[in-house]
C-alpha cells in the first residue's frame, strides 16, 4: 500500500498543468522562430541563388557558422555577450534570436534547393508568357519549388522545435526546463521525462501528419 502511494508522491495534477504550460511555451518560441526564420531563410536562399559571387563570399560562410556551431554554444555565447554590445535580452528574447538565425541558416539551403528545383525551361516558359521576374517567382517558382522541398522544410521545422529544448540552459521555462524542475522536486525522472516526451510528440505528430497529407494531395 505504502509503496503504490509513494510511486506517485510528489507528482500532482498541478504538475501536469505546469508541464502543459511549458509545452505551450515550447510551441510559442518554436513557432515564432520557425516563422521568422523561414521568411529570412527564403530571402537568404534567394540571395545565395541569385547573388552568385557576392553572396557566396559573404553570406554563405556566415550561414555555415550558424549551421555548424552547436546551438547550445550559440545560445550561451549570445545570451552572455549580447549585453556587452547593448542588447539586453531576456532568455526568451535571446532564444528567439538564436533559434531564428539558426532556422534561417538551415532554411536558406532548403530555399535555394527549391529555386534550383524549378528548371530553366519552365522559368523561360513563364517569362515567355510575359510574366515579370517576380511574377515568375511568385506563381511558378514558389509553388513548384516549394512543394519540391516541403518535406525538407518540415524536417527543419520539427528539428528546430526539438532543439528549442536547449533554450532551457538560459533558464527559459519551456518543456525541458519544466521537466528538470519537476524532477528535482519529485525525484521521478522516468515518469516526468516520459510525459515531457509525450508532449513533444503531441506537438510534432499533428505537423508531420498534416505535412504528409499535403504531400499526398500535391502528388495526385
Amino acid at each position, binding site marked *: 500500500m505504502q509503496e503504490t502511494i509513494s510511486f506517485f508522491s510528489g507528482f500532482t495534477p498541478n504538475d501536469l498543468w505546469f508541464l502543459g504550460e511549458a509545452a505551450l511555451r515550447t510551441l510559442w518560441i518554436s513557432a515564432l522562430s520557425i516563422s521568422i526564420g523561414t521568411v529570412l531563410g527564403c530571402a537568404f536562399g534567394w540571395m545565395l541563388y541569385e547573388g552568385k559571387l557576392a553572396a557566396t563570399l559573404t553570406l554563405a560562410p556566415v550561414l555555415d557558422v550558424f549551421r555548424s556551431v552547436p546551438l547550445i554554444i550559440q545560445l550561451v555565447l549570445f545570451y552572455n555577450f549580447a549585453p556587452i554590445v547593448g542588447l539586453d535580452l531576456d532568455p526568451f528574447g535571446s532564444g528567439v534570436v538564436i533559434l531564428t538565425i539558426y532556422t534561417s541558416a538551415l532554411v536558406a539551403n532548403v530555399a535555394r534547393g527549391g529555386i534550383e528545383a524549378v528548371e530553366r525551361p519552365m522559368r523561360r516558359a513563364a517569362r515567355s508568357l510575359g*510574366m515579370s521576374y517576380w511574377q515568375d517567382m511568385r506563381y511558378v517558382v514558389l509553388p513548384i519549388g516549394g512543394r519540391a522541398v516541403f518535406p525538407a522544410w518540415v524536417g527543419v521545422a520539427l528539428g528546430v522545435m526539438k532543439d528549442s529544448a536547449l533554450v532551457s540552459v538560459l533558464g527559459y521555462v519551456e518543456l525541458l526546463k519544466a521537466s528538470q524542475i519537476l524532477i528535482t522536486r519529485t525525484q521521478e525522472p522516468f515518469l516526468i521525462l516520459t510525459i515531457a516526451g509525450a508532449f513533444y510528440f503531441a506537438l510534432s505528430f499533428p505537423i508531420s501528419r498534416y505535412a504528409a497529407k499535403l504531400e499526398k494531395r500535391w502528388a495526385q
Partner: protein
Amino acid sequence: MIEIRGLEKYFGALQVLKGIDLDVEKGEVLSVIGASGSGKSTLLYCINGLEPIQKGTVLVDGTDVHAKTTDINKLRQKLGMVFQQWNSFPHLTALENVALAPKIVKGKAKSEARDIAEKQLRHVGLGDKLNVYPNNLSGGQQQRLAIARALAMEPEYMLFDEATSALDPELVGEVLDTMRLLAEEGMTMICVTHEMGFARDVSDRVAYFHQGVMDEIGPPDQIFGDAKSENTRKFLANVR
C-alpha cells in the same frame, strides 16, 4: 512584322549566330530547319528577348526587342512561344495553366481569364480536360495545353521550337494538326521543326540554318525541290 538585321549572338567565346538578316511578314508561316546546334532555338530566344544579343537588331512591329527602354514583358505578350519541352505548370489544372498569365500579366478578372482559358482549350481540342492536372495528360495533350496557354495571351506571333521533337511518334500528329489549324487561321508563325512534311505543306517559306548562318531561304518548293546551297541539299538528303 519581325525584322532581324545583322544579328550576332555569342555564348562566351562561341559564336552561335553569325549575322542573321530575316524579315517575317504578318500572316506568314516560316519554317526553320537545320542540323542540331545550328542556332535555331537561339534565334527564337533572341526574337523574344529570352537571350541577350551582342550585335544587330531585332524589331517586332518596330519595337527594338533588346533596347533597354523596351518593356520586354509587354512585348512578349505579342510573341507566344512553345518549347520542345511542354513545361506545363504541374500544380495547376489545365484551365488554371491557361488562365494564369491572362490573370496576372494582363490583369483580367478571374471569370474573364477563365472564359479565355476555356475558349483556348477548346480551340486546341482539350475542352474535356479543363480540370485535369498536367500529369494526367499525355505529352501531346500537354503540348496542346502549352499552345493554348500561349494563345490565351492573344499573341500576334507564335514561335515554335521543335514542338513535336519530345513526343512519342503517335502523338506528333495531334500537335502538328493544331499548328496547321493556327496557320490556316492566319497566325504569323516561326516554326523550328524537323517535320519536313509540315515544313513543306504549311510554310510560306523555309529557312535553312547551317552553323549559325542562314544558308538559304525560299519557298518550300525551291528548298525541297531545287535547293541552291550544297549544305541544304546534304542536310535534306540525310533527313529523308
